[in-house]
């Protein structure tokens, strides 16, 4: 069927969807089982099987229904919740507490996350040292593995990392879906530049003080992962800032606006990923021949990447994280995944299949470890 016709659909038959899901089934099977399924521990086997089923059923449904965001979001939110569960359980197991002490800092025992990366670059270039108290090659949240994972993902997906790879994004994505209609509709466009201001500030302060200032003072996700032991007024103020930012930007504002406000207004890594959108081959395009300018996509976009002027001129801004929400709401499939250099409106199915495979595979591989641990933990609680 012609891609530009109004009746054009991305839905596939059951058999075709299964066929398209086969590569994902095989790769995730090898990754989750390590190539050799082990049934010696029944609870672990059940946890692995449940994760394998979850991942592949969601991927199958993306092809079968032609919808992207609703199934991506399920795995993305589970990923965020399970990662927090894994991190907290690991810390309680190793330290008996969610908080870290000065001794943990001195012994470089702090788990590394990708949000530190913007603050590491300038000090690493000038001092040849990493300003984060973590392990370089550690098996759990080591610096080297996280940097490589982020670098590969951001070069391939650009800001797609924020909707397919970030293990925090699922928090505000989840809260932004709780209400059907937003309470707060008018938000000044200027705020979408805030992450660049945060990036500027934290890069400068980290370079001058050689301390990862974002982690030290601003990161809202300290509230659901780890935090500095409260032993002074300063650490108490920091804890207050973390909790306030989490409550405001990750819970309250996403519920009120139906937007991912932490990702849109604060995250400095999001600013870097926005810049990397310029070089990634994958993008979202608007087929002007099919677009009726209903602007449903503008209202749906959780990251302020679409506006009416952009839709009229057929342009999606660099803020796009390729989450697929606009694709799902478009009544004419006028907005679609595309590859740079290929004219909009053409190769819609091929582009979607390719981008879905790459993005979903990254998320599935990245998320499955923590989901297995979480399911296993829940099974332990039940049995």
């Amino acid at each position, binding site marked *: 069927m012609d891609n530009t016709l109004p009746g054009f659909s991305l839905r596939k038959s059951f058999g075709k969807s299964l066929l398209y899901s086969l590569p994902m089934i095989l790769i995730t099977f090898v990754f989750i089982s390590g190539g050799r399924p082990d049934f010696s521990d029944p609870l672990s086997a059940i946890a692995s099987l449940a994760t394998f089923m979850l991942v592949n059923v969601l991927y199958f449904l993306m092809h079968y229904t032609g919808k992207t965001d609703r199934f991506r979001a399920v795995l993305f939110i589970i990923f965020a919740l399970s990662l927090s569960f894994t991190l907290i359980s690991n810390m309680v197991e190793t330290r008996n507490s969610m908080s870290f002490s000065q001794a943990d800092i001195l012994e470089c025992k702090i788990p590394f996350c990708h949000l530190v990366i913007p603050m590491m670059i300038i000090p690493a270039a000038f001092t040849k040292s990493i300003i984060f108290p973590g392990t370089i090659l550690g098996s759990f949240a080591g610096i080297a593995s996280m940097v490589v994972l982020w670098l590969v993902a951001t070069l391939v997906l650009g800001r797609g990392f924020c909707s397919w790879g970030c293990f925090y994004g699922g928090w505000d994505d989840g809260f932004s879906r709780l209400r059907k209609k937003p309470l707060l509709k008018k938000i000044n466009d200027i705020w979408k530049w805030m992450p660049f*201001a945060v990036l500027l*500030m934290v890069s*400068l302060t980290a370079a001058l003080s050689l301390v990862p200032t974002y982690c030290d003072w601003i990161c809202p996700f300290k509230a659901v992962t780890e935090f500095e032991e409260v032993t002074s007024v300063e650490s108490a*103020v920091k804890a207050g800032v973390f909790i306030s930012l989490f409550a405001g930007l990750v819970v309250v504002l996403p519920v009120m606006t139906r937007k991912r406000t932490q990702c849109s207004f604060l995250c400095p890594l999001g600013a870097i990923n926005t810049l990397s959108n310029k070089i990634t081959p994958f993008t979202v395009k608007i087929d002007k021949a099919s677009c009726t300018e209903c602007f449903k996509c503008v209202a749906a976009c959780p990251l302020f990447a679409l506006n009416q002027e952009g839709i009229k001129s057929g342009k999606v801004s660099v803020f796009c994280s390729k989450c697929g929400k606009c694709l799902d709401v478009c009544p004419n499939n006028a907005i679609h995944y595309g590859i740079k250099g290929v004219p909009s409106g053409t190769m819609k199915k091929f582009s979607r299949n390719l981008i879905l495979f790459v993005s979903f595979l990254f998320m599935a591989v990245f998320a499955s470890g923590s989901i297995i641990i979480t399911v296993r933990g829940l099974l332990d609680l039940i049995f």
Partner: protein
Amino acid sequence: MVLFPYLMSGTAGVKRITIDLSFFLLSRMVVYAFLAVISWYLGKTFLTNQVVREVVPGILYIVFAMMLIWYAVDRNRQKECPAKFVTTVNNRKLIPVFLGVVNSLGFCPALFLILTKGASEGSLSESLLAFLFFFIGSSLWFLPLPLAGKLKKKKVFETIGILATGLAGVIFVIKGLTILIGGKING
């Protein structure tokens, strides 16, 4: 830390800096070193009591940070270059030096904040170091100007600068409040 985004959001003319940038920066450095000594001396003379030494900077941080936030949100601020009178100087070689001095003494909220920091430092070397960082941070912006002078005209950079200025203000308000309620903050 503060003046870099502050300048980014400003609209003062900088074209002439491209000619004698080094003289301009040198004169700024001298003025800042002078201000470091003055602020440290004033702090040492007047902030003798330990309680006063913590309370006064805490209050000043909050006041000046509020001014910085006001600068960021006030869209009707005076946009004319404060160094306009320098154009009346006939000696062309002295112009960048005069500009450097005037630019350094443009008492903005950011400079007030760093003066407060200089006054609350324990030793002269710490005060000098604080001003050195301030000089470096505030000079970075000038370095690419001869090559990329048009950068500043772009609306988006001005927007980011304004937001960063406001953010710096919020950080200093928190810093001031923390100091006031008994915390000590490094950096």
